[in-house]
């Protein structure tokens, strides 16, 4: 650390930032209830909590996006008010959002200086900015070409640009909101090296993540929020994944769900050399071969955007193939419409459940019959049998523990976890032969995640052939019998769960051929 209280970037350090007794109310909800939180220069302080625990609210207060109803913020011992994000940036607080805030058609340097005054008045000073970016990049090991266009960069590189953007603006305290969600395990490791480097140089970092092992890896201290209240702030030493999870949820959590022995059955779903285009008409699937057996979960791991979405859509009939064959229980169903596949007992939990799996304005009951509304017992001669639909809906709401005021409630007013339960209820109640589950727990909290996992394993035991498409490696590792890795529209390799490690999978996810693993 430098001694004069300044960072290597020449900007002043934030030695200690305290939030005291922060309370933030929203209509009907107490989002933060007298929360204390502090972070010091030279530490990574993790902020943990389930959806709705109040993490984002607390950080938005710190970043000036919300004003607290009660409580105060102290910067190096002095009371401050942070009125806006601009104010926060001026005080040395930077935030890296989960979704990148970059202009794709501009270069790195143009993005970095976006919104900043130029040292040359009305003329740009991109050359000076580039030099400065190179210095920062060299110092922190954030290799990136200042003149590259954002669209040319990989996800991990875009994240570096975001960090450089914050550092360039003199951030001494960085708020990182789920920064690892989009990275491969290798990229995560590199990213952690950068974080360690920054901390060593006197930065303070607040790290928000769902992934408990990452929190344990990188943090010095951890603060757990639940229901808007502070549960505990403690040193990371002595914390385990299960102790942290227990603090988050308030009860014991099964970290690794039990997978019963199930005899692997016949092949129910087979893909043979399947090709397909993306929405932009570029090749998305380039010869995919897969087989999913009855009674097994085949996990499909991969970094986002390597063809997972297209694969799910091709199998479920929502996207046309441009080559190859798809076999359902030995019969070719290539190019068949979704309705016919539904009739063949193919179920699908779509990635974008709000957009693809639900009609938001429809009631819970109407959504539950989306697949089978035209069949007995829900309708006869074209008329809906409302009483039977109501009974069916009530039964599923109870069986799948959907929290909804009634079956007549519009789906859009349910929480994400409950919407997913409605989708699960609809798809699983059909007793599917084959189930495609795409990102089934994305955005869900631990409780809902446990629930979804238990249901998937239940289906596996019932003999369903399950293709689990997930970007969450922990999930894939915990549930799958075999794991296939997709990279640029090709299956890089298929590993048995016993031989799959995050490292091996990570290499495959990065496109390294399996022979060399």
């Amino acid at each position, binding site marked *: 650390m430098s001694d004069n209280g300044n960072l290597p970037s020449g900007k002043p350090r934030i030695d200690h930032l305290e939030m005291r007794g922060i309370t933030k109310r929203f209509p009907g909800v*107490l989002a933060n209830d007298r929360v204390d939180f502090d972070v010091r220069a030279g530490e990574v302080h993790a902020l943990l909590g389930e959806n709705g625990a109040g993490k984002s609210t607390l950080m938005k207060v710190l970043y000036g996006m919300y004003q607290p109803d009660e409580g105060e913020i102290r910067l190096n011992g002095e009371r401050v008010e942070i009125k806006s994000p601009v104010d926060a940036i001026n005080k040395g607080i930077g935030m890296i959002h989960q979704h990148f805030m970059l202009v794709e058609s501009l270069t790195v340097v143009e993005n970095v200086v976006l919104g900043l005054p130029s040292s040359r008045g009305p003329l740009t000073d991109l050359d000076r900015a580039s030099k400065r970016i190179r210095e920062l990049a060299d110092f922190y090991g954030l290799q990136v070409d200042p003149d590259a266009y954002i669209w040319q960069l990989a996800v991990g590189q875009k994240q570096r640009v975001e960090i450089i953007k914050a550092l360039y603006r003199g951030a001494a305290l960085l708020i990182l909101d789920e920064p690892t969600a989009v990275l491969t395990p290798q990229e995560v490791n590199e990213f952690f090296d950068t974080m360690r480097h920054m901390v060593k140089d006197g930065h303070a970092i607040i790290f928000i993540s769902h992934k408990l092992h990452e929190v344990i890896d990188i943090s010095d201290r951890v603060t757990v929020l639940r229901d808007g209240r502070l549960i505990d702030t403690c040193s990371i030493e002595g914390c385990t994944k299960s102790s942290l999870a227990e603090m988050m949820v308030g009860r014991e959590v099964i970290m690794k769900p039990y997978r019963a022995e199930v005899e692997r059955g016949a092949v129910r779903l087979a893909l043979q050399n399947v090709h397909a285009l993306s929405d932009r008409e570029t090749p998305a699937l380039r010869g995919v071969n897969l087989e999913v057996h009855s009674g097994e979960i085949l996990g499909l791991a991969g970094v986002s955007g390597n063809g997972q979405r297209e694969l799910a859509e091709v199998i479920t009939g929502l996207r046309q193939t441009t080559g190859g064959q798809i076999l359902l229980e030995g019969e070719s169903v290539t190019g068949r419409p979704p309705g016919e596949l539904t009739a063949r007992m193919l179920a699908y939990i779509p990635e974008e459940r709000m957009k*693809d799996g639900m009609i938001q304005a429809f009631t819970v009951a109407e959504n539950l019959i989306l697949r089978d509304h035209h069949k007995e017992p829900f309708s006869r001669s074209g008329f809906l049998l409302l009483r039977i639909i109501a009974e069916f809906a009530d039964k599923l709401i109870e069986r799948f523990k959907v929290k909804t005021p009634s079956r007549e409630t519009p789906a859009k007013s349910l929480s994400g976890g409950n919407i997913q339960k409605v989708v699960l209820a609809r798809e699983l109640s059909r007793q599917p032969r084959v189930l495609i589950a795409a990102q089934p727990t994305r955005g869900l909290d631990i409780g809902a995640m446990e629930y979804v996992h238990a249901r998937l394993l239940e289906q596996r035991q019932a003999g369903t052939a399950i293709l689990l498409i997930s970007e969450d490696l922990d999930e894939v590792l915990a549930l799958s019998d075999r794991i296939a890795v997709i990279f640029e529209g090709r299956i890089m390799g298929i590993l048995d769960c016993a031989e799959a490690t995050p490292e091996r999978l990570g290499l495959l996810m990065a496109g390294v051929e399996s022979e060399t693993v």
Partner: protein
Amino acid sequence: MEDRLPKAEVSALDTLRANASKIADALLPVLAVLAALAIGAIILLMLGANPVAAYGALLEGAFGSGNAVAETIVKATPLLLVGLGICIAFRGNVINIGGEGQMVVGALLATLVGLRLTSWPGWVVVPLAMLAGFVGGAIWGGIPGILKAYFRVNEILSTVMMNAIAVQAMNYLLRGPMIDPAQMELASRIPQTAALPEAFRLPRLAPTRLHLGAFIAVVLAVGVYILLWRTTLGYRIRAVGQNPDASRYGGIRVRHHVVVALLLSGAFAGLAGATQVFGVNYRMITDGSATGFTGSAGFNGIVAALFGQLHPIGAIPASFLFGALLVGANKLQRMMQVPSAFITSLNGLVVVFVVSSDIWRRQRQKRRLAAAQRAAEAAVADSGGPA
């Protein structure tokens, strides 16, 4: 997370506020009409007429006597029929501006049936003619439907174009192939068809011009309600209208149902045209424009449907009110001696206000939803989000 939310008191005030906005939403179209009338009052003042007396005349014209009420209902009937079709189309998220043309084509086909089968008994011909009207409108609505579903032609444009085609077809047919033979002999050549036999007239419901069409329209309103909310077809039309992606996923043929929605929508307008011929005019006559025959019901029906919140049952009082406005305005014009252009402007004002109030209502709804989601996001879904 859902059961462990810190549910700070959802106060009675919040509930009250929610109810208040619901009531406000329902009253909004009424307020819009009042606003239109207020501007109409300013115009009346500028024309040198007393607005109070003028609107008094309007009320009297619409409701002042049994005959006036009957006239109001006669005017409301095509509005309701067209409005029912609009409910179906808008629920399926297709915009049908082609009510005028669909009415014309429905009327032409129905008239053709009536004039061809003059020797048949009325109880056979009238239902046949109504069916012909239904089919004619369906064809005229179905064509833009197919264009939209399979060739991505914007239905607003195509339905408007189809109006123009229908009018010219009508003008051609009434001047030529379908012209009243008597007109040919007289050489006056008024573009109109021969009168329908008396046996083919829709029965009157009272010693007024009120005819069976009004009854048919109300029964069909209930029918459309059943169609939309009690049948698989209605379920699919609404599903496709709300979310085509999820509908596709649910195995619903999206394009097919886009066509069906527009086709049904046109069919109801066609039926409106047929009831106008068989219930009111007893022949087709043209002044060269569609309005001359439809009285703009093809457009005003849209307003009536919006006025009724796109609910077929709501469309009944909405059409009645709108019919009252039209009938009353005629009386107003006769009594106050204001130019007839005033009535057209008043009509236009109401359309503009009701339609924009509906747009405003939707935006408010969106804002409310967004605000609720922001609060919920802050409190409920804060860290998760799509990774």
